[in-house]
C-alpha cells in the first residue's frame, strides 16, 4: 500500500535518513521503532509530505507520490497524527475533529464519521466543547487520532501515540489502534515504546541513526538480543 524506496532526506544540509526502504502492507499494522533521534519522525514527514526527500521514492497504492504536496496526500487517503499531536489549541475538540474532514474525501460523510469517532472514544463526546489546549494529554491524542480518521483515510500514520500520556491510557490508545486495524484500516506507527507497539503489530522495522537495521515479524524482533542492543546503543 505504502512503500519507501531508497529514501534519503534531511534538514538544511544535515543528512538524517540514509537509504530507507520500508513497506506498510494493506490491512496490516506496521511499526517503526528505534531510539530517540534515530530519524523516525523524519521518516513520517517524508510520508506525509512535509519534508521532501533528496533521493528515493514514496509509492502509495502503486503511484509515485514523492512530489505530491502534503495537503493533497491527505486528500488521497494518507492521514497522519504528527509528532506532538499538533492540535489547533483554540478550537474545541469537536472543531479539531471537523477540521479533519476538510478535504473532499472526508467532507461528504463527516457527520457519520464524527459519530463513529465518538463511538471509538466516548470520552471525547463529553469533552466535545472543550478547547483542545485544555484537554489532557490522553484526550489530545484521542482527538489527534480522531481528526486523522475524519478524512476517511486508507492508511493511518501515527507518530508516537504513547508520548506524554498516562500509562493507563497508553494501553487504551493501543487497544483502539488495534481495533481500527482489525476494522480493516492500514496502520503505520512510529514508537519508542517498542514492547507495546510490537504487541499490536504485524510487522516491524528497527531504525538506528537514520538507517533501517533490522526488520521482521514482531515475535522475532521482541526476542532478539540485537533489538536491545540497537535500542540501548550497546556495542
Amino acid at each position, binding site marked *: 500500500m505504502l512503500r519507501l524506496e531508497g529514501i534519503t532526506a534531511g534538514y538544511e544540509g544535515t543528512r538524517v535518513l540514509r537509504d530507507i526502504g520500508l513497506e506498510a502492507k494493506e490491512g496490516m499494522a506496521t511499526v517503526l521503532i528505534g531510539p530517540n533521534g534515530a530519524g523516525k519522525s523524519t521518516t513520517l514527514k517524508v510520508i506525509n509530505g512535509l519534508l521532501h526527500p533528496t533521493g528515493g521514492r514514496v509509492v502509495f497504492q502503486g503511484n509515485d507520490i514523492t512530489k505530491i504536496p*502534503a*495537503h493533497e496526500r*491527505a486528500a488521497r487517503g494518507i492521514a497522519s497524527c*504528527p509528532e506532538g499531536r*499538533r492540535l489547533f489549541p483554540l*478550537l474545541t475538540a469537536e472543531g479539531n475533529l471537523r*477540521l479533519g*474532514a476538510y478535504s473532499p474525501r472526508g467532507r461528504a460523510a463527516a457527520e457519520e464519521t464524527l459519530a463513529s469517532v465518538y463511538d471509538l472514544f466516548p470520552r471525547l463526546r463529553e469533552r466535545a466543547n472543550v478547547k483542545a489546549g485544555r484537554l489532557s494529554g490522553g484526550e489530545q491524542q484521542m482527538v489527534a487520532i480522531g481528526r486523522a480518521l475524519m478524512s476517511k483515510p486508507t492508511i493511518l500514520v501515527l507518530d508516537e501515540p504513547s508520548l506524554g500520556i498516562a500509562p493507563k491510557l497508553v494501553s487504551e490508545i493501543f487497544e483502539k489502534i488495534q481495533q481500527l486495524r482489525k476494522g480493516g484500516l492500514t496502520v503505520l506507527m512510529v514508537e519508542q515504546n517498542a514492547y507495546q507497539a510490537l504487541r499490536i503489530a504485524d510487522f516491524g522495522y528497527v531504525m538506528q541513526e537514520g538507517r533501517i537495521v533490522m526488520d521482521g515479524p514482531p515475535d522475532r524482533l521482541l526476542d532478539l538480543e540485537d533489538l536491545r542492543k540497537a535500542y540501548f546503543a550497546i556495542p
Partner: protein
Amino acid sequence: MRRLSLRTLGPTLLGILAFLGVLAAIAGRMPLVLLTLVINLLIFAALAYSINFITGLTGYVSFGHVLFMAVGGYGLAYGVGTLHWHPVAGVALGALVSLALALGIGAVTLRFRGVYFAIASQVTALAGFYIVLEVQELGGGQGIVLNVGFEPIAWFYTIWVILAIEVGITYWITHGRLGYGIRSIRADEDAAKTVGVHAAALKLVLFAISGLFAGAAGGVYYWQGSGIFPNEAFSLTFSLIMLAMIVIGGMGTLLGPLFGAVAVYLSSQYFLTVLIGFEFVIIGVLVVVIALFLPEGIVGTLRKYVPELRGLIE
C-alpha cells in the same frame, strides 16, 4: 462547519453595515471638516482590512504593505495624469496592478515563514521605492502632481464602496469551511497541510486580495491628496500604522480593523495638534503595550473578559 455557514449574518456584520449606512446617509450634510475626517478614517479602515486579510488571518506579517498602497497611488496618478482617465478608473487601475504585483511577489515570499517573510516584504517595498525613483513616467524622485478637482463626496463614496466590499469579503471568508482552513494556517501551518488545507493557495489568494484593497485605498488616498511623492508614498510609517491598527483592534477579526482604525486615526489626529511626529511614538507605545498585555487586541480582549459580548462581536 456546515452549521456555522448556515448561521444568520450576525450582529457584528449588521452593526458595521448599519454604521456605514448611517455615514452614507448623512455624508452629504456633514460639515466639510467632519467629512474630511470621516473620509480619512474610512481610508485607514480600508487599509486595516486589507492587511487583515494576510497578516490578521494567516499570521504572515506583511511589513512592507505600504508597497501596495503606493502602487495604488501610482496607478491612480498614471491613469489620471497620463491616460486622462476618470479618477475612479485610476483607482481601479492602481488596485489591479497592485493585485497583480501581490500575486507575483507572494508566489515567492510566502514560501518564507515568520520573520523571514516580514523581512522579504520590507525588501520588496524598498525595491519598489528605488524602482519608482528611476521611472520618469512615474515622476521619478519628483513625484506626480495631479490636476483633479476637490470632490469630497466622490472620495467618500469611492472609499465607502471599497470598505463595504472588504467587510463583506472578510465576513464571507471567516465563516464556514474556508475560514477554518485559513485560521488553521495561522495556528499551525504544517498541521493545517496534513489535514488537507491547501495552505500555499489560500495564502496567495489572501495576499492578492490584500494587495488589491491596499492598492484601492491608496488610490483614493492620493486622489484626495491630488498627487503622490515617493518619499511619502513608500514611508515605513504607513506599514507600521497598518500593522498597528490590526494589532490594536484584534488580528483576524471582523470588527477589529475598524476599531483599530478609529483608535489609531483619532489618536494620531489628536496628537498631531499637540506635537508633530509625536503621534507615532504614542502609537508605537500603544502597540507594544497591547501586544504584551492584550495580545488579542480590543476585540479578542472584550470577548475574553465580557462573556455577554461573545455572541455579539467577532
